[in-house]
């Protein structure tokens, strides 16, 4: 006991005991994490005086469930995909957020009308960006890549491929590469035959795949020459290509669009501060500012007029967004209901597939 007391005194003196109100945000790290720190966290702390910390994760949805189930919540806000937000909300892992209390847009539009369709789909979440899974290639290693079918064409474009280690997006892209039109993907995937067909397509490149987990890995894999093509989050490739001058080219064919949303894990010790953070960060101006650092589209309509140039003050951000008309020719919107229901099953199946020879 005495030892405990000495320890406790020592630790308190060093000043590491839990302090007053603060916000810990868990997001996806890398260039995206940086954009959020610049556009949300720093102005938030400046405006409210509440300190904010950014924590990285491969996918913030996963630790949330572990934390809530273990009764051990250490983060206050998390940035997750729509299907995960709906699933976690269904499972009682998230606090409900009052959408009506979100601030009006800069042009005076009430929040409920200001957000784009689907952005407020879940009562536990508020969307901040529209992003997409695309694939990209290194222009110094190969050229003329046009479609998802090319991604799967090892004979014509030899070399390693990078894919995210997970079922989501890979199954859809496999079907599209196999000739299924974007509109029919989820109907087919709802059947056992469709899932089998997607895995069969993935089988054709399995031995040539380097699997990535964190969003920052694909540009690194391309830069290191470990792969010639890889799927990636579009903003990461943009930042490596435009921000760092890497010879990467995005192929928009078969892109899969999704929202990223802020959610608040149930049982966070800083619920009020977390609510304040979500309301602040999803305001018109922070969402527009965010697009200055990475090519993800703001989830508010009122932010659009404020989206200008990249932080280099040269590149127009508009055409870089997943929602730009030119990029939409064969685009797929992620079916959140499908994945909210089937993610667990398909992930398990994917894992078995990955480990079996």
């Amino acid at each position, binding site marked *: 006991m005495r030892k405990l007391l000495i320890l406790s005194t020592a630790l308190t003196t060093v000043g590491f005991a*839990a302090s007053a109100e603060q916000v810990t945000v868990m997001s996806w790290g890398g260039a995206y994490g940086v954009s959020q720190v610049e556009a949300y966290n720093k102005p938030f702390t400046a405006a409210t005086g509440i300190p904010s910390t950014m924590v990285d994760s491969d996918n913030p949805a996963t630790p949330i469930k572990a934390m809530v189930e273990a009764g051990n919540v*250490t983060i206050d806000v998390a940035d997750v995909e729509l299907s995960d937000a709906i699933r976690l909300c269904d499972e009682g892992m998230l606090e409900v957020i009052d959408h009506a209390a979100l601030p009006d847009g800069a042009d005076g539009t009430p929040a409920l009308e200001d957000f784009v369709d689907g952005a407020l789909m879940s009562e536990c979440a508020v969307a901040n960006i529209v992003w997409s899974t695309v694939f990209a290639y290194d222009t110094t290693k190969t050229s003329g890549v046009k479609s998802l079918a090319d991604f799967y064409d090892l004979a014509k474009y030899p070399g390693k491929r990078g894919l995210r280690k997970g079922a989501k997006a890979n199954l859809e892209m496999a079907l599209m590469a196999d000739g299924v039109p974007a509109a029919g993907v989820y109907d087919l995937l709802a059947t056992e035959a469709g899932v089998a067909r997607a895995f069969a397509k993935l089988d054709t490149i399995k031995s040539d795949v380097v699997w990535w987990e964190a969003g920052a890995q694909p540009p690194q894999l391309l830069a290191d020459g470990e792969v010639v093509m890889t799927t990636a989050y579009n903003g990461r490739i943009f930042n490596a290509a435009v921000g760092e001058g890497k010879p990467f080219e995005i192929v928009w064919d078969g892109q899969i669009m999704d929202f990223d949303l802020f959610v608040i894990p149930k049982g966070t010790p800083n619920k009020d501060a977390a609510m304040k953070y979500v309301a602040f960060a999803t305001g018109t101006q922070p969402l527009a500012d965010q697009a200055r650092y990475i090519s993800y589209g703001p989830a508010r309509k009122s932010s659009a007029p404020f989206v200008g140039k990249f932080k280099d003050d040269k590149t127009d951000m508009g055409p870089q967004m997943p929602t730009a008309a030119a990029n939409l020719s064969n685009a797929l919107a992620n079916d959140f209901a499908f994945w909210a229901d089937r993610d667990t099953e398909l992930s398990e199946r994917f894992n078995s597939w990955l480990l079996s020879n």
Partner: protein
Amino acid sequence: MALPIYADKLERAWHFTYKVICTAVFIFLIAPIIVVIPLSFNVEPYFTFTTKMLTLDPEGFSLRWYDNLLTLGITDVEGVRDSTWWADVWANASWVKAAKNSIIVGFFATILATTLGTIAALGLSRPEMPYRKLIMAILISPMIVPIIITATGLFFFYSATCVSPDSTIGSLLAPILSYRGCLANTYFGVILAHATLGIPFVIITVTATLVGFDQSLPRAAASLGATPRQTFFMVILPLILPGVVSGGLFAFVTSFDEVVAVLFIAGPEQQTIPRQMWNGIREAISPSILAVATILVIISIGLLTTVELLRRRTERLRGVTPS
């Protein structure tokens, strides 16, 4: 090993091959550690040797990744480097925070492991110790049991082991427990875990020192009127000190290098250097990792030197101790 003069041609050839093999293994052992050092001075943000580096062009080298260790996580990266800037670095820079955490956790875990471990080793070395083998096996087991199993067990245990913050004990322990009164995500929890992992090393090194220890010395001290306390501090401890210190160093390194338990039981407040490195290797693209690696290699050279000096001292002491 010199070759005997009667060696024939075949033996000479074999002896040469043997030396080549040994050299190759030594290169295999040491090259990876050496290779990261020049790469940490790379201008490019990727883990590869550039042509400029290979031609030793000064433009290919820079200290930017070392500088990055200071600026990652602070508010004003480009700011003037005055005292406020440095205060910001000290308080907010991710790597500086991680270093502080590593040192705090490592320090307390080492103290805990070394104290408990040394006392236990004294008991274990007594010939009268009952169930010696079994107890020794239990005490060494944290080193043998895969870390993932230990970390998994601790994750559940720490999440479930709570005292109500409103109770007397809870309020007393409030500074070292989480807001819910649990061990998870606390410095205290990480320290306990790291102490557990470091204990086998203390036990092994201290019992090894005690093997050559002359048990008649404490008896002589007692017969001359020394209290057990005096005997311990004035006779036993000075003799086994080198073993205790190297055990402590092992425990510290174990804590300083530990990432899996931290991944499972620590919160964002307790990010240590290895945890930050793990993030870096898997997530953010940054050769800052190599800069950290270089610093860590230098630290390990320092620790190794200390342990070697201590070992020699023990051997010298062993020489004068009757056995």
